[in-house]
């Protein structure tokens, strides 16, 4: 019974760590627990933790708390954990195969450095074009995007809070784009900086926060909203500081 408890809670934890919605994590935990024989399964999830309890076959209440410390978007994991829960409910998987599958999902490798750099460059570059930049602006934004995209993994390894990651990444990214303008590589600095910032902007987080709140997960929604607001502040302060510094150094002229 405790195995089922651990499996259900871990499934919810992986869901939340991969950026899944709160209600989906709760549904997955309840579905896994009930399909493995738990009655009265209830799960309460927030972006920072999962609480799960159910009544086992032995008639006792089992419960567990899982803390969630880091979150990084991993859509493939969300899809696979969701499928795992569906398979369990449909009876296409038993406990053993489900636990090996969850283990496999958790060990799913992240992007190789080269690939994530390429993806960041593509994202930043094309969004620069979208916001009326030219090809040269896009190339500089892509280069800045590569640098910016290396910040989260490196800073996470040093246990740095997300706030500082966003702050420093935005500052360095803006500095690179303004430097590009100074060198004559960038014509439209606004577009280049916007394209680079798109990598950091917590737009998805804001949207998810509002959706969680509308769905009735009030605590999770407010927590995500605060997280998104803090990230927005960090990015604005980081990029803004670079702009102010630039103004100081270039004698009052803003890009």
């Amino acid at each position, binding site marked *: 019974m405790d195995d089922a408890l651990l499996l259900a809670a871990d499934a919810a934890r992986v869901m939340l760590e991969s*950026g899944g*919605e709160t209600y*989906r994590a709760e*549904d997955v935990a309840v*579905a896994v627990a*009930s*399909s493995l*024989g738990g*009655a*009265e399964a209830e799960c309460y999830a927030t972006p920072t933790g999962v609480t799960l309890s159910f*009544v086992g*076959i032995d008639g006792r209440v089992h419960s567990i708390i899982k803390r969630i410390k880091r979150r990084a*978007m*991993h*859509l*493939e*994991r*969300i*899809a696979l954990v*969701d*499928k795992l829960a569906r398979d369990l*409910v449909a009876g296409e998987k*038993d406990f053993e195969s489900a636990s090996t599958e969850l283990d496999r999902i958790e060990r799913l490798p*992240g*992007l190789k450095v080269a*690939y994530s750099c390429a*993806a*960041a*460059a*593509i*994202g930043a*570059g*094309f*969004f620069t*074009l*979208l916001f*009326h*930049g030219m090809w040269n602006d896009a190339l500089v934004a892509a280069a800045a995007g590569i640098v910016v995209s290396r910040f989260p993994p490196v800073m996470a390894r040093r246990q740095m809070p997300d706030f500082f990651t966003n702050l420093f990444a935005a500052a360095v990214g803006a500095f690179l784009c303004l430097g590009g303008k100074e060198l004559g590589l960038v014509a439209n600095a*606004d577009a280049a*900086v*916007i394209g680079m*910032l*798109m990598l950091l*902007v917590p*737009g*998805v987080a*804001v*949207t*998810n*926060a*509002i*959706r969680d709140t*509308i*769905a009735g997960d009030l605590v999770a929604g407010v927590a995500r909203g605060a997280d998104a607001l803090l990230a927005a502040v960090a*990015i604005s302060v980081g*990029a*803004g500081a670079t*702009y102010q510094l630039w*103004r100081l150094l270039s004698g009052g002229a*803003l890009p």
Partner: protein
Amino acid sequence: MTQWLEPLWAGLGTAGFAFLFNLRGKDLPIVALGGALGWAVSMPILAATESQAFAYLVASMVIGIWAEVVAAVRRRPASVYIICAIIPLVPGAGMYYTMLEYVRGNNWNGLATGLATLLAAGSIAVGLAVSSAVSRLISLRSIARRLSSPRRKPTIENKGKYSQQSIRRGDKKNLSASQESRH
């Protein structure tokens, strides 16, 4: 840059972000299409009404419905597609211009731009919520899912809900039901 290329840029940028979010394979061109679709919908509305919030509201409703359809075909959660396809609409530019106004010392303009940015973000969320509510109302698949949802399984009878006996009985019933369906 010519305007008709914008959906293309939006789609390619979306694919880049989707790959960064660890989406692989067939889903990448699908979400690129979704990102392009959302932007293409928002463009004429933005031009006609000059209201970013309204344009984003409609575009995110379209994205939401598109994502529900794709999710049903691909048998994956709709949010996987939604998260990627709304990225071009995410008001990164608004946030940047808000910051720029404050740096320039135009606090009132900054406040106005910031509010407009917040409104745009809110309208995306509302559009998505509306489309998911609509699809929940009309989709047969989700009705079927709701009926078979484990949460709704009546494992314990009302009588003597908290007696150990009934809980045990309920559990065995639940367990045997899942075993039956396995074979």
